């Protein structure tokens, strides 16, 4: 009996620990959502339920604009870095010129401020207008640093045996990529896309320096609001964004798309 009890205890301790860690990660999120419904102007005391900040949010076009800019930039930066990153991986693995891959570690190693200043000086030097494109360019650099290692790891795992089998069966390189490698690389591509998307949304430095006078991303907007403490409208938009992305994830997981990302098959 005693042994059984001990077993039950040790069986419980792990889920409880993991649960606590999840709680730890979600605490700030819960607080944020809570305060988006708070009457008070400063997120420090609960003063009663109110939808005021949501109402205000939809009357503040800058925030919605900023959110739109963030999403557009993140989307295109993700697509661009995935496409050119995957092309690079294909070429470097098939040509066995792996030595080139190390240069992409720089993207992860450099502090973002250095990258941002660097990109801005190059853009200014060449008189390139700042705006969506400069942001996409900068975020693509960040993205490449993640896409290439992630996709490459998967590619090396698959190659060469499946590539050879496919070529042997009469498929050309293009067909081999489309019909064999791409479906098998898809999990890593989706995973790295999610990563790049997240990083692009969160990035402040490049967004701050390279956005130019006409647009700003949500992260920059949020940062510029810091001085007065976080405006609850920021909480509101974060809550909405969070709700939307949770919904997306629920739908995707219902459609079993996510299993594709997680499984190794």
């Amino acid at each position, binding site marked *: 009996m005693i042994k059984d009890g001990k077993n039950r205890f040790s069986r419980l301790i792990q889920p409880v620990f993991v649960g606590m860690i999840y709680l730890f990660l979600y605490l700030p999120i819960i607080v944020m959502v809570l305060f988006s419904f708070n009457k008070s102007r*400063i997120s420090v005391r609960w003063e009663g339920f109110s939808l005021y900040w949501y109402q205000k949010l939809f009357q503040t076009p800058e925030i919605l604009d900023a959110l739109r800019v963030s999403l557009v930039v993140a989307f295109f930066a993700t697509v661009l870095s995935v496409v050119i990153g995957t092309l690079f991986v294909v070429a470097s693995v098939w040509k066995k010129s792996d030595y080139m891959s190390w240069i992409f570690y720089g993207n992860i190693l450099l502090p973002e401020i250095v990258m941002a200043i660097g990109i*801005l000086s190059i853009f*200014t030097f060449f008189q390139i*207008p700042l705006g969506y494109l400069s942001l996409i360019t900068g975020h693509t650099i960040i993205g490449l640093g993640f896409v290439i290692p992630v996709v490459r790891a998967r590619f090396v795992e698959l190659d060469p045996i499946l590539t050879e089998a496919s070529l042997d069966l009469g498929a050309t390189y293009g067909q081999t990529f489309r019909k064999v490698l791409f479906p098998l690389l898809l999990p890593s591509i989706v995973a790295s896309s999610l990563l790049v998307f997240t990083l692009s949304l969160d990035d402040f430095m490049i967004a701050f320096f390279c956005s130019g006078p006409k647009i700003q991303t949500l992260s920059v*907007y949020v940062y510029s609001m810091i*001085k007065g403490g976080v405006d609850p409208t920021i909480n509101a938009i974060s809550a909405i964004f969070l709700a939307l992305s949770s919904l997306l994830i629920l739908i995707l997981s219902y459609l079993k798309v996510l299993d594709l990302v997680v499984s190794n098959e």
Partner: protein
Amino acid sequence: MNNLFNSLKNFYDEWYPKVVIIGVYLLIIAGFLYSPRVFEYFSNEQSINVYAFTEFVSSEAVKEFEHETGIKVRIQYFEFNEELYAKFKINHGEGYDLITPSDYMVEMMRKDGMLQEIDHSKLSNIKELDSRLLGKYFDPENKYSIPICWLVYGIVYDRDIVGPNFKQANLGMLFKDPWDLVISDVVNKHYRVCMAQDPRDMVYLAAIYLYGRTKNLTDVELAQIQDLLSKQKSWVESYTDAGTPYFLTGGIASVALISNHRMKKLQEISNKFIFQIPKDGSIMVIENIAIPVKTKKSDLVHKFIDFLISKKIAMLHANLYGTNSSNISVFNEKVAENSNFFPKDTMFDKLHLINNEISLDRVDSIWLGVRFS
């Protein structure tokens, strides 16, 4: 000779295609990056791009201006003057049509030739400006800048902590050891302090406390300032702007350095706190509008400036943000409403502007020393 020719030819054969490929890609990338220029060329939208402090140009005002004139205004916000300067330093502020530098920044930008002269004749509301804010050191003839509002730093304290002996807030509340104040019965309990985020403010404030001036500080004096700030660190809770309300309302700090417009917000949450301008003087900041030298939309910008300093908008902003308006009639009205937040005329002389005498490098090295002491 033949050999050399062959090796050259091999080199050429090998690299020729690659150079072509690289060239094509560079063209594509360039086309991609420069494409906005093309759209820009064809668009003749009437618009101005504003780069402003977070709390000085409201979206309400912008909406009204757009409605009145049909000119589109895009605003971006910055937090520190230095961000503005850094951006302008790199790309000469290209694309921005209106900026709001603080006093000392106007001087720096003016000296660096980043600002355009302002045509006063185009500003119908210029006579309404508070004359006390004009002709300051950073722009003696206001050729390059027009004040939009101003702030003063004061001391906010929890009314519970002061004892019967206490009359008027002074800088000693920030710089003297709270234990000493408890012992000498000025305050009745020990407290912690919140200071501002910008180290520059800290250094100048300490100079006012120690020497009553912010000019001609010697190296010895600067070293003393560093000592003072280092000592002060032990009772400082945080050097923050945004966090101050949290720490005050949370009971973590009882005394803080705060600007009068931020105090207004604090007042809205809690009435436990009293705001006073220290009797030994304080720092004031004049926020200005200026026009970057590169803008081509000077006419539109002048319209917008005139709009911003008009009584209606100045009133709107004063109500919204609690800043001291540069429009004299608005300011007087506000003072009449609630004199607590505004310096009295007698105090005005004791308010110091930040200047560029102490280089930022110097400030930073003092600051690093403080934080590492």
